[in-house]
């Protein structure tokens, strides 16, 4: 399921457009300045990202989006990962798939930021279903909402549909816990919070959730690639015993193994994106997304962890950029499901081809 040359060109163009928010040369000053602040990202930059059309990459053109495929949205997520961009694009794009009409328009323009509230326990890969709708209100608890303090509203996944809850509505409490990457997770407690029902076609939540999971894998790919590049640069320049440490065979062989992990992750993520673009059925979709996320999570943790080792002592300082990549991986590796959870789902969903 490889892409045509025209399609590859389109993916390349979308990928290149990320330069709009990722400074050349990997400058991370903006990212460092935003760490551990509230809301942890910059609304101006978010507006630029909306002007580029990114929250609506996967929204159809008639609904005001770009109508692009998963291969394009993966490419953007990967580039954002390389640059450690903190603006919550993946979550906002997920929410956009569930909105329509004026709410969607405001989401795509950046006028209002709606984030998805789907998860009710740690480690979940399916939406929690305990949050209840009652007479124009919702009650329940949703967890692990990235950058939740910057949201104007939440699209809350219920057992039988969706509800839109404004962040400042009565009955809404948001607790934020800082995360290693400088952002935070919000826990949303809804106690008879005023809400409006929103309609989404059957299967829309599962599909959008799978795409967000794959985008997370793509972002991890970007994270590991950049951490690996930084490490290779260091191996080429750092000298000990009178030569560059990259000339030592033990470090060369370790680097070769990491290169294979990057290549496998890229192949897995891109193959999954191509499968989704080809419209595979829901079981295969879940299987290939799980495969990509399991690989990306394990590979990103391994590469960023070894990147610290390859850097030696300097790698353990906050001043060295490589640590930012490890701490991003620590958050993303388990977001949208652990590697173990995804391996299990893969085994359930993917029929074995008899040889």
């Amino acid at each position, binding site marked *: 399921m490889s892409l045509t040359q025209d399609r590859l060109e389109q993916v390349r163009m979308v990928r290149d457009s990320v330069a709009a928010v990722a400074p050349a040369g990997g400058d991370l000053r903006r990212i460092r300045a935003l760490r551990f602040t509230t809301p942890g990202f910059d609304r101006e930059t978010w507006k630029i990202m909306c002007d580029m059309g990114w929250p609506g990459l996967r929204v159809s053109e008639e609904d005001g989006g770009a109508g692009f495929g998963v291969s394009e949205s993966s490419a953007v997520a990967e580039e954002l990962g390389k640059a450690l961009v903190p603006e919550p694009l993946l979550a906002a794009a997920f929410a956009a798939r569930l909105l329509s009409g004026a709410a969607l328009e405001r989401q795509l323009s950046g006028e209002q930021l709606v984030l998805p509230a789907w998860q009710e326990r740690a480690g979940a890969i399916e939406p929690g279903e305990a949050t209840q709708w009652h007479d124009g209100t919702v009650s329940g608890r949703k967890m692990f909402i990235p950058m939740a303090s910057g949201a104007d509203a939440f699209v809350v996944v219920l057992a039988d549909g969706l509800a839109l809850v404004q962040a400042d509505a009565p009955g809404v409490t948001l607790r934020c816990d800082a995360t290693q990457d400088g952002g935070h997770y919000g826990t949303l407690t809804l106690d008879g919070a005023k809400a409006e029902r929103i309609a989404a076609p059957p299967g829309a939540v599962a599909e959008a959730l799978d795409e967000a999971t794959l985008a997370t894998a793509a972002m991890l790919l970007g994270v590991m690639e950049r951490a690996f590049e930084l490490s290779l640069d260091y191996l080429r320049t750092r000298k000990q015993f009178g030569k560059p440490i990259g000339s030592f065979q033990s470090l060369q062989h370790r*680097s070769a193994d990491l*290169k294979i992990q990057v290549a496998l992750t890229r192949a897995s993520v891109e193959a999954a994106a191509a499968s989704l673009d080809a419209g595979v059925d829901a079981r295969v979709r879940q299987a290939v997304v799980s495969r990509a996320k399991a690989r990306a999570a394990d590979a990103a943790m391994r590469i960023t962890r070894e990147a610290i080792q390859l850097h030696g002592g300097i790698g353990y300082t906050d001043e060295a950029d490589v640590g930012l990549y490890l701490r991003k991986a620590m958050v993303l590796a388990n977001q949208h499901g652990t590697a173990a959870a995804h391996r299990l789902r893969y085994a359930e969903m993917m029929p074995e081809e008899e040889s």
Partner: protein
Amino acid sequence: MNDIDQLNQLDDDGFRAAVREWVQQNYPAELRNPAKRLHWRDNKAWYFRLAEHGWLAPGWPREYGGMGLSASKQLIMVDEYERHGVCRTNDHGIVMLGPLLIQYGTEEQKQRFLPNILTGAHVWCQGYSEPNSGSDLASLATSAVLEGQEWVLNGQKTWTTLANDANWIFVLARTDKTVKKQEGISFFLVPMDAPGITVRPIINLDMHDEFCEVFFDDVRIPAENLVGAVNQGWTMAKALLGFERVMIGSPKQSAYALSRLRVLAQRMGVWEDAVFQERYTRFRLDLADHTALYEVYLDLLRRGEMPGADASMLKLNQSELLQRITDAMMEVAAEDAGLLEPLDGNRELNPSGLFLQARPVTIYGGSSEIQRSILAKNVLDLPG
């Protein structure tokens, strides 16, 4: 228009169906998934069947008696053969020598050697590795000296696959000791019945004699048996590696081993075990991701591009995955892992055999250590 021209005109799906049907109807059932590499005496019936059908040389141009298939169709053919468990033949003439002669040989050499490969009259083996030149192949020491109109060869080759079946050998030999090691090597065609050649089979850990040592003791061959220019041998041999570099990383070996692991686990009663299932699923995922990476390189070949040094990732990753799977077989098989013969008289239930056969895969064709060094230096640009 004959059958082969028609095959060339089919779309990929139609071609795949045609290959599958023909293989199912013509491949000898008793040769499916052989437990060991087959000797000429066992695989020649299939070789001749292919020859008779005109399918022996998929990649050679039509004018030389090949099928003239596109890269894409050749890959489909390999895929269908592997799916059906088709054995390898004594194919060095077809896979290695033929393409080299077509590109670098004289018209006379092509006329003399290509038809004999296609009829099976000449069975070739490859004389590259030497006892002191394994990973560092370019350091090879077998010498060729021109005396009048004859080249005189002296030295020793080793790991020569199926030399005990061959009546011809193509040899890399040193023709200049004064230049950089890669620039003093030439390529020769040598009949195995030439006086001074001795072949000694090597019994491997799987108790099989697929590899041999070949000794050259004042072996004299006519000057016209040199291919290409003097000292061009290394360049020619390397130029044809692109396709091989990818093929050697095919996921099929691991896929086959994994299918055997499944059957073995069922036989041993651990298939439902959660710990086994977790391990098995990891293998499935590793195999699926490897296959996706392999596909990336197949796409490159289909577009007519030649893969670079980064393709060594495929061989390295596949061979180590194969070993992890066969390691698991050893554990799952329990005491039966130590048996000399396949289990239950079923050649496809052969854990100890597969485990042993997985040993050389990380050694031949550039050991895993060499592959890692190639990746580090030529792909990751790390300092020498």
